[in-house]
């Protein structure tokens, strides 16, 4: 039996000596996790890079069929959600429970708006026969296989991103509940901080996806 008495609190769990040690560990843990996420998405970015450099014209033509206006609106929605997330973290620092909850709710709403718009876009693809599979067809190119490859990557990459958004909304809802029951104070709000890191990361992935998928070659001939 340990002779030292470790009174475990949320801010200092039993394996840690001080609150700042625990906070450093949690933050570093999230950063390392985000690095693994970069490598995870990296495999798809590699496939994208390889195929786009092999088939630049088909990728350009396929990209032009995407709705850049909707994509831009969604980008704006996500940027706003990152802003509300920052404000939630700030409120956490100050220990203002109600303010944290307000900004978490806003972040969640914006997350749902993004997912709703994304869902609408995917539905459009079904209507236009741009979903890879037997009924796939892209006007104006004989290279249907390569065009389909673009849309495979489009669905895989935006799908994986959307999955991360869903997880993010789940995390935010958990944080909201924990704030509601009064777990977080100005001394201990690490989960909000760390959850924020995750949210911004998912945001940044989209910042890369948007130009790579929507804005490759806007000014080429319409297919």
């Amino acid at each position, binding site marked *: *039996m*340990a*002779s*030292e008495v*470790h009174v475990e609190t949320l801010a200092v769990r*039993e*394996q*840690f*000596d001080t609150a700042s*040690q625990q906070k*450093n*560990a949690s933050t*570093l*843990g999230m950063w*390392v*996790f985000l*690095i*693994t*996420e970069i*490598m*995870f*998405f*990296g*495999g*798809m970015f*590699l*496939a994208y890079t*390889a*195929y786009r450099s*092999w*088939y630049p014209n088909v990728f350009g033509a396929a990209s032009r069929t995407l709705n850049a206006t909707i994509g831009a609106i969604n980008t704006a929605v996500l940027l706003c959600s990152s802003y509300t997330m920052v404000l939630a973290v700030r409120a956490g620092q100050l220990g203002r429970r109600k303010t944290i909850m307000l900004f978490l709710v806003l972040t969640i709403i914006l997350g749902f708006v993004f997912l709703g718009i994304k869902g609408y876009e995917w539905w459009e693809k079904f209507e236009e026969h741009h979903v*890879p*599979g037997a009924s796939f067809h892209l006007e104006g190119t004989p*290279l249907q*296989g*390569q065009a*389909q*490859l673009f849309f*495979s*990557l489009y*669905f*895989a990459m935006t799908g*994986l991103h959307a999955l991360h958004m869903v997880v993010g909304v789940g995390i935010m809802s958990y944080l909201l509940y924990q704030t509601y029951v009064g777990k977080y104070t100005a001394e201990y709000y690490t989960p909000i901080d760390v959850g924020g890191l995750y949210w911004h990361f998912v945001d940044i992935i989209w910042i890369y996806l948007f130009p790579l998928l929507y804005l490759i070659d806007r000014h080429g001939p319409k297919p």
Partner: protein
Amino acid sequence: MNASYGIKSWLFTKDHKRIALLYLATITFFFFIGGIFATLIRIELLTPKGDLVSSDTYNKLFTMHGVIMVFFFLIPSIPATLGNFFIPMMIGARDLAFPRINLLSWYLLVIGGLFAIFAMVAGGVDTGWTFYTPYSTSYSNTWVIATALGIFIAGFSSILTGLNFIVTVHTMRAPGMTWFRLPLMVWSNYATSLIQVLGTPVLAITMVLVFCERTFHIGIFDPALGGDPVLFQHLFWFYSHPAVYIMVLPGMGVISELISVYSRKAVFGYGFVAFSSVAIAVLGFLVWGHHLFVSGQSLYAGMVFSFLSYFVAIPSAIKVFNWTATLYKGSISFATPMLYAFGFIGLFTIGGLTGLFVAALGIDVHVTDTYFVIAHFHYIMVGGTLMAYLGGLHYWWPKITGRMYPEGWAKLSALIIFLGFNLTFFPQFILGYLGMPRRYHAYSDEFQVLHVLSTAGASVLAVGYLLPAIYFVWSLRYGQVAGANPWKATGLEWQTPSPPPPHNFEETPVVTHDAYDYSTTVGEVIEVG
């Protein structure tokens, strides 16, 4: 450690020591499953004709042997058991930084393993452990998806273990435990964690893409749609070459500990050995193309990858030379763990040198996909990693359980394993050089003598593996009581009772000496303030 009993106290434990033991039981189970497949393979190869199993069944046997041994035994082996148990203790911490994530990693390994076992029971997989496309995505009629899913899930177990170790080593070191006082076991596991964290996600996404390709035919690896099957090989080996170092680096860490303790000297060139681990981790990411020499990669790329592969031999050689230098004028004792350490150095050196053969473009074209390659990586994986794992297990067994293993039986089985191993795999170098291809269950008569030798060796090896399983269990009850520090070693893990209390140390230790400081302390308990 013995705070409470009962199945629940184990399944919900957050104690890194208990989780390590859960891992120990799990990977031992998988080792014997993989061993059964190996046994069937060796029996089939006794005769030139394919008489025991059909060629389809044979394909499944070597696939499942590879999948189980690589992803469910070798990858978790040393980090998840010995690393999990001893890294917090070696740095003077009460636990890992994230105990609940540690438990989650174990559950992920078990769930991933259940998927793999389901695939085996349902009918097996026949793609080889490498899952090369387009065979795995378009042609194989076996349980590729279940197996890929199992590997995907087990991959996250590996990622989370790595993440936990990195954060723990950065933030949980005891007062006075500077980076250059860390035992080399910690350094090598830290380097391993870097690979796990950077490489495994790429394997995970590759498995996702194989899954998508197989289910939805998205075309990413399908030439008919403009995709490229070789892209799979790039992604796969970007992980799987570094994965060799996930398997062997922790073993090198164990060997550094053993060599030092049993020659009662500090490891020669501590800084070089520590940094060579990191160098291996980094360089390991730059050489994956040596698996694609015959996959239509450009000659220029082949030359670059060949050159870089030679380069990665340097840090490995640094370790071997420094271990040898440590032995010089040491007072060496030949306890069982030290026998395994010697075995490791010898076999790893052979495995490493033959690695240089296959890293050379010209020779590789001759021996690629032959038994030469099989022998080469079994010398690294079994001769290296498994030797180190067993050596480490014997060395730390008294600390883990509080009991000594029977020294005589242990020495005997170490000897049996060494002889059996060489008898199994050395003939395979010759077989490969003579042109016997891998993954064939029937072969021409001239190879039979060497195959019979190899199977005989495998039987000896099997006895060597069963013995420790028996006497370790025996020692739990009848072994001599070990005491805190039976080897008179310097590490912090030896400065606390065996088995250790729930929070490892009565009081957080304060470190005032370098690792392996045998000159001043001569193995006495160093002051714990």
